[in-house]
């Protein structure tokens, strides 16, 4: 086994590995290198040490984006997961038309972020016009717009994972609990939830990282307006890199910081929720 594994390793893994190295490892390492340099084009750079990091941390747009993104992530992770869980719960009760609704709820996830952003921009503005407002009248409008958009898009996906989780719970465990006379709420709390932990882990991970990395929807819906108040981290990095000459290195430094933050948060979350996972 070990031997054949070794023998076929290059055949099966090498193509993917090469693709991975070209499309991920090289840009990643280059990116880290570039964050310590001053450059306009990526092939022509000059070492400047940690200056870019100092500028990034003293940049109030970046700090504002970090706070805004954190708020957004907290609200949307909680709302998406609760709603997706509820939808999944009801769609596994054997209600008529469950399959139809499952498909329907999943559909928004198939549309790209930019398209969604523009469509929702029109919808939101259409509604807000009645109150003499637009999405960019104040930061709250943009914030809740993003939350609603993100919920609409992500709930379907998370729902599918929760449904799979529900279907994996052995029927007899619930039945046994019923025989013991527990209320449905207690059954949920002590039987269903612990068994659902693997789905919860993966869903929290997906929603958390996606909320932090949100870019397309942000760009299309508000583009940071008014006055960069609804600009999230990814968009801030993009704008620093592309719309400010001489700030490419700072944008790169911000991207590295961004990576560290997202990695740290999601790994912590994985560790914490994994501990709660049990076997049926």
């Amino acid at each position, binding site marked *: 086994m070990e031997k054949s594994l070794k023998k076929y390793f290059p055949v099966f893994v090498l193509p993917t590995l090469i693709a991975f190295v070209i499309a991920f490892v090289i840009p990643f390492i280059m990116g880290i290198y570039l964050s310590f340099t001053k450059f306009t084009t990526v092939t022509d750079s000059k070492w400047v040490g940690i200056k870019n990091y100092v500028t990034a941390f003293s940049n109030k747009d970046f700090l504002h984006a970090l706070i805004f993104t954190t708020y957004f992530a907290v609200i949307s992770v909680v709302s998406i997961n609760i709603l997706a869980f509820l939808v999944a719960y009801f769609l596994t009760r054997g209600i008529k038309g469950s399959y139809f609704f499952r498909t329907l709820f999943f559909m928004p996830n198939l549309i790209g972020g930019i398209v969604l952003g523009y469509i929702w921009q029109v919808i939101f503005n259409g509604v807000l016009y009645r109150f003499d407002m637009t999405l960019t009248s104040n930061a709250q409008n943009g914030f809740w717009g993003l939350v609603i958009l993100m919920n609409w898009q992500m709930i379907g996906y998370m729902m599918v994972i929760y449904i799979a989780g529900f279907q994996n719970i052995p029927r007899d465990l619930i039945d046994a609990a019923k025989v013991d006379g527990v209320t449905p709420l207690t059954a949920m709390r002590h039987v269903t939830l612990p068994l659902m932990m693997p789905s919860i882990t993966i869903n929290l991970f997906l929603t958390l990282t996606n909320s932090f990395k949100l870019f397309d929807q942000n760009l299309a819906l508000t583009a940071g*307006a008014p006055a960069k108040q609804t600009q999230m981290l990814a968009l801030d990095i993009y704008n620093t890199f592309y719309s400010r000459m001489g700030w490419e290195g700072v944008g790169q430094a911000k991207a590295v910081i961004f990576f560290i933050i997202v990695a740290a948060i999601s790994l912590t979350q994985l560790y914490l929720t994994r501990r709660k996972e049990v076997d049926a």
Partner: protein
Amino acid sequence: MKKVKSVFVSALAMLMAISAFTGCTSSSTNASSAASSAAASQESSAASSAKEIYFLNFKPEIADKYTAIADEYKQKTGVTVKVVTAASGTYEQTLKSEIAKADAPTIFQINGPVGYSNWKDYCADLSNTKLYSYLSAKNLAIKDGDGVYGIPYAIEGYGIIYNDAIMKKYFALSDKKTTVSSAEEIKNFDTLKTVVEDMQAKKDKLGIKGVFAATSLKKGEDWRWQTHLANIPFYYEFKEKDANANTISTGLAQSEVEFKYAPNFKNIFDLYLNNSSTDKKLLGSKSVNDSMAEFALGQVAMVQNGDWAWATVSSQKGNVVKSEDVKFMPIYTGMSGEEKQGICIGTENYFAINSKVSKEKQDASADFLDWLFSSTEGKKHIAELGFIAPFNTFSDSEMPTDPLCKAVLTWQNKTDVTNVEWTFGSFPSQNFKDTFGADLLQYAQGNETWEDVVNSVKDTWKSEKANSNS
């Protein structure tokens, strides 16, 4: 574990390879590795002149016409012109990624002295090109020392575009509150204000939704205010500092600005906001195209924009504006002596040739530009593109014929007025303009006071200047 280790080792090897690669390119001074390899392949094919050049186009609205030009040039000379067009508002980022490629643009565009300082390392000296020799006013070019690095190719003008049909209708009203009887007689801000406010009050009678088209303040659609309108107060401020110098060079030398004529900016900006088709709280969702559509459909009488806007107006479905009714009025802001002020005429379109591609490609690029601006076929295309080309190869009859371009030429030749220069070429950075635009939106929505806007403009100018110098 072993595999993890081997992945790690290969990653490390990659890192070393990359650092060696970047180290080598950054230490080479005169040519990038891409350029030298391009040169090498040129030599090996033993061609005396380049067979392909690459033109990175700035104006998406005329992308098709450029492709047609490229086809014609290929038939004539056998040289392929690769035309790539950057999507609206993304020129800088497209250029940034394209120029790093081995097949880099040979002709690209810079937007003025500030653009030049960003792309200095890539701009070839054009002082020996034929195109430069055609330039009718040599002081328009971007120079640095003895070298010429950017050649302007289109003169443009902007002001308040008005629909004379609606204006005539207003001036024919018996109960108008003003003494003037035609739009040409509006010569200062006070008259303009009286006329506009009276028109706004009578908008139903005139069959319009408002006097001015929406003041588009959506992000990326606010350049008519943070760049073009802002030009006027800064023009006067810099002119006062040095009356004889070009206001762009005066502006470039300022590390701080007073924004002394901010009240004048406010005058006209408030007039736009308060006498418009659109409630000012809703402007954050309006784009330039929305405004131009309103104008084309006859829903508004005036819109601030430039000669390039004719293409949008005339191609608008349901356009009711006749070409003989479209005219320019200077943007009056209540400056003393503004009766003699003209419209804003200048350029922010400069050709540059990439100095890091092979010599053959640079020459072929210069030849292409020469052909485009001096041959009969080329000049015909330029006129069709609606460019007022500042070259002595063009006779008056070869100038574009659309009404707004003609109006610009008329204003340019007037002797009793002084046309305003495009001082905004001296604005420190795109970020300065974007911040200004965002503040204007906040002001229009009532989230910021005018003082906030003024202070923000002054602070951003200062900080952006400090940044660009470091």
